[in-house]
């Protein structure tokens, strides 16, 4: 049989392969340019002690987590339990970056009552009222979770609410691995 007749078949298979690849790609997950880069610096007031500042630099020397959240963010509530479990289990220092929430005209101090209601798992909460620190961290949509190593290098970004499987299969092994590094 003439080889020519197989060309449409192969073209079709290639097209299906390309489409399958496209199906598995989530266009909302943008590869973060921070992975492997130094964590962007911020100096923000603490939620419970507004006259005290917290910076990214003072977290150096340990593996830590930065979690962007807001009281107005519905999926933050969904991930809250899971995130609390991770922090509890790994005893990992975690900064909650309160993004455009506390201190805004619209939400005033809802962040405080939100944490009172659902529990506060954070080591410290940094208040980013105008969202400038969030922009520096390349926020697309809260919640977002970063893992930073002892040298202050961003090693991982999780976009969207973390779920149990991601904690057990990605975050826990990663934090373990980073702790063993020098």
């Amino acid at each position, binding site marked *: 049989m003439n080889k020519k007749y197989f060309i449409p078949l192969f073209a079709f298979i290639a097209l299906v392969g390309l489409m399958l690849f496209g199906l598995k790609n989530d266009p909302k997950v*943008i590869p973060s340019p921070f992975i492997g880069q130094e964590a962007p610096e911020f100096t923000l007031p603490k939620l419970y002690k507004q006259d005290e500042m917290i910076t990214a630099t003072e977290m150096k020397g340990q593996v830590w987590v930065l979690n962007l959240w807001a009281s107005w963010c519905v999926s933050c509530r969904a991930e809250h339990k899971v995130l609390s479990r991770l922090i509890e289990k790994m005893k990992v220092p975690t900064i909650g970056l309160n993004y*455009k929430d506390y201190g805004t005209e619209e939400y005033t101090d809802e962040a405080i009552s939100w944490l009172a209601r659902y529990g506060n798992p954070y080591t410290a909460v940094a208040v980013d009222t105008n969202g400038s620190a969030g*922009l520096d961290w390349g*926020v*697309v*949509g809260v919640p977002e979770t970063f893992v930073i190593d002892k040298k202050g290098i961003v090693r991982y970004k999780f976009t969207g609410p973390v779920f149990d499987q991601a904690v057990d299969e990605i975050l826990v092994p990663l934090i373990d691995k980073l702790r063993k590094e020098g």
Partner: protein
Amino acid sequence: MNNFLKVLIIPIILVSTFSTYSVQIEFHSFENPQRERLYLDLIAELRCVKCQNQNLAESNAELARDMREKTYQMVIAGKSREDVVNYMTARYGDFVLYKPPFKAKTLLLWIGPPLLLLLSIFFILKMIRNQNDQQTETITDDDLESVRNLLKSSSDREK
């Protein structure tokens, strides 16, 4: 005249419905028209990462507003086009640019379409040339005679 009005009215309706969807974005005033031009160029070229397939100028997402604000602040502070683009790509990657830079990773993106165009032109030309090469049979007088005979004999039979 009446018909002419009827024809005119459809595009008018279409255009006016679309314009109601246009986004109202905040107005920034500039003292320097060059700066204004730069700002408008930048927000047209930078992509909103929240609402993909819209640029900053077209999007009313909150993140897009923040990014416009940042662009505005940088532009009036005298930063160059390159500064703003570097700031945005450092945070959001090449993704934020509607015109990504030419490098190994984006090679296919840049040369793919012209390559496809050249390939299709090549194949179409080849096809057309093959068509011309096909032998057309020349009909001789003998052939015509035999066809006539055939037709005649069949019409004879029908009678």
